[in-house]
């Protein structure tokens, strides 16, 4: 067979075909890039949404677990997306093969590209070139790949929608924080009612402790004892403790819930739980979750307040300076706390309330009755019975117990009206009337 003569028109045809393939390649590679970017962004947004939601709604350990899993999935997904992008990156041969497949060109383009690269043309090269040129419309970029935007955009939109849906939920769960930041009143706690435990270094909340010298010395002794006990604890407990603190701090940073430092006055008033100033019903009727007037959002039940390492008359805010944290049992009396507000005990003992693995957000959310039942009302019905203020429902005793009956009205009578005198309408002897009236009015 004679060799193929140089054909300038053949070169033009080849350029046309190669240009078309380049356009197709650019489109396919662009789609692959878009896919990687959209999937990556969707993963990051979805993971961030899940982490934020978990921070607002879950207990620290659950938050830590969910957050870690979400972060790992996100990182893995990003790596996979990058790998996929690298694989989807189309070479000229791959683009030709795809064009052949989608336009049913029976590998004409693939062969053309390969032979053109080799440079050794056979006598049938012009025929192949002509054949491919005639079918140029079949492998136009718009016919091989119609899309200009990757379908993974929907994934990104879905992730954005998820984030948008999650936003109101996070706002809703901010309620207790707002209440927590409202007016702070100094608390007086009985030192004997406190369960003192070493605090994690990561704990950020603190308290300003004050007390007389004797009480502070006693506190120092208790802290030393607590540290000794802590050293004897097993590794697993310590790790769990640290994880809880870490998770709590993370949650606080994410949610922005940071309770102001508490002003606590310590007292050493004899036997634990004894508080003559507290009415008996305030302990009996208070639900366990309504123990704290100042909810602790520190992320750890043990780190609600921090005491100084050595007793002193007055201490600065705890911050991270003290390795110890205090816990008040649920029936801690609220000495010096005004009775008109909610329950004055700031710290719930998680072990006694059944929430030993909760702290931080859940602590705050679970121990704040105002957050659950709305802002406390200060009307007359709460006077003398702080149970009504906490539960926002009529109590079993006190003046508010009669809210189901019509209130007494002391309005003046008009001239045509007469006071009802039931005793007068009876045949009661005059000497017994005062006795009966007293019994009625009792």
């Amino acid at each position, binding site marked *: *067979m*004679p060799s193929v003569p140089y054909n300038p028109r053949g070169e033009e045809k080849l350029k046309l075909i190669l240009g078309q393939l380049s356009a197709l390649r650019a489109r396919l590679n662009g789609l692959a890039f878009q896919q990687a970017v959209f999937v990556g962004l969707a993963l990051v947004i979805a993971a961030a949404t899940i982490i934020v939601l978990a921070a607002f709604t879950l207990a620290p350990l659950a938050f830590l677990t969910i957050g870690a899993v979400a972060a790992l999935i996100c990182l893995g997904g990003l790596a996979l997306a990058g790998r996929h992008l690298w694989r989807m990156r189309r070479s000229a*041969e791959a683009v030709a*093969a795809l064009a*052949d497949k989608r336009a049913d060109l*029976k*590998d*004409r383009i*693939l*062969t*053309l*590209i*390969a*032979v053109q690269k080799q440079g050794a043309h*056979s*006598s*049938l*090269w012009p*025929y*192949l070139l002509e*054949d491919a040129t005639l079918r140029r419309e079949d492998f136009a970029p718009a016919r091989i790949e119609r899309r200009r935007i990757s379908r993974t955009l929907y994934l990104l939109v879905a992730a954005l929608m998820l984030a948008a849906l999650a936003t109101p939920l996070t706002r809703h769960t901010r309620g207790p924080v707002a209440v927590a930041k409202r007016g702070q009143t100094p608390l007086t706690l009985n030192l004997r009612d406190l369960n003192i435990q070493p605090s994690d270094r990561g704990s950020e909340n603190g308290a300003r402790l004050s007390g007389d010298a004797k009480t502070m010395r006693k506190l120092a002794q208790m802290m030393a004892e607590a540290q000794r006990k802590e050293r004897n604890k097993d590794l697993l407990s310590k790790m769990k403790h640290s994880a809880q603190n870490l998770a709590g701090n993370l949650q606080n940073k994410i949610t922005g819930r940071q309770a102001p430092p508490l002003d606590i006055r310590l007292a050493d008033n004899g036997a634990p739980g004894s508080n003559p100033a507290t009415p008996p019903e305030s302990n009996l009727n208070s639900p366990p979750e309504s123990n704290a007037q100042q909810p602790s959002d520190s992320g750890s039940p043990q780190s609600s307040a921090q005491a100084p390492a050595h007793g002193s008359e007055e201490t600065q805010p705890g911050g991270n300076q003290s390795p110890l944290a205090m816990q008040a049992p649920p029936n801690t009396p609220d000495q010096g706390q005004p009775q008109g507000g909610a329950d004055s005990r700031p710290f719930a003992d998680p072990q006694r309330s059944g929430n030993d693995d909760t702290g931080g957000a859940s602590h705050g959310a679970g121990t704040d009755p105002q957050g659950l039942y709305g802002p406390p009302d200060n009307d007359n019905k709460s006077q003398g019975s702080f149970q009504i203020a906490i539960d926002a429902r009529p109590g079993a005793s006190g003046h508010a117990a009669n809210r189901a009956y019509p209130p007494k009205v002391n309005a003046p009578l008009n001239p045509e009206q007469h006071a009802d005198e039931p005793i007068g309408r009876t045949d009661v002897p005059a000497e017994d009337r005062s006795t009966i009236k007293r019994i009625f009015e009792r």
Partner: protein
Amino acid sequence: MSAALAEPLTVADFARTFRRIQGEIHKLIIGHEQAVEGLLSALFAGGHVLIEGVPGTGKTTLVKALGTVLNLSFNRIQFTVDLMPADITGTRVILTGDDNRREFSFQPGPVFCHILLGDEINRATPKTQSALLEAMAELQVTVAAKTYRLAPPYFVMATLNPIEMEGTYALPEAQLDRFIFKVSLGFPDESELVRIISSTTGPDEAGIEPVFTHAEAAGRIEALKHLVREVMVAPAIEQYAARMVRATQPASASFMGERRGAPGDEVVNRYVSFGSSPRGAQALILGAKVRALLDGRANVAFEDIDAIAPLALQHRIMLNYAAHSDAVDAAQLVERVVKAVRATRS
């Protein structure tokens, strides 16, 4: 060479000539379309073909028809157990010349032709069968230390009778490997049988006409064979063919004490004692090139390789005893290999 040959052949010329030859053969041969196409593909790919079929299915008629249509010299050898190599290749005999001097002169055997039919080749001894090897592979015959060239085109068609195996000698693998394709002539269906009866038992037998003149036949066929070689193949498709051939090798296949078997299919590992040789890959590509030209293309496609694989690979796969025991044949294995390799493409 005629004036027509001076002009370069085109893809369309090839397809037109091929279809014309096919049409003439089918005037005589009823049915067997795939077998005829395979036979012609082997001719234009430059190989030789093994035809397998039960008696009476038209093996000899097909080969004779091809010889007539191509208008090339045609010989037929009926292989028997007492046939000797010299009966095929030719021998030196003492002849008396014009000057009454007697001298040894080479008398060419039946291999000296363009188209050779070796009928029931498995009836001859391996020694006689092997006499064909040199002719088939190198287009030459060596007798008494003298080599005689065979005129191209040279095309050997050997028939095998698969049911009468008593007193036969199975072809050695080396000789089987020299046949580019193995074509099976199946039993005709009822309508084909009716047409065979009516066309062969009447007063007038169907006449077939040569496609080429005797003078130009060899040149035209050689030109068409050359055109086949010009068909372009992408490296990816060559790799695909190589992968397919390697997939026929069981994992335990050993070459010169070195294990080179591909980690192939479980069924291949179980039933194949030895897979296709590299000639199988050559057969795949050449057959695919013919198929591409017939489809009006100057390039080989993946699907050409798939389509030609049964013809090119079946007779190159040596089955073990387990395959015979489980009634697994080479066609099933090739089909499985093609599917497996095709799956790796996408």
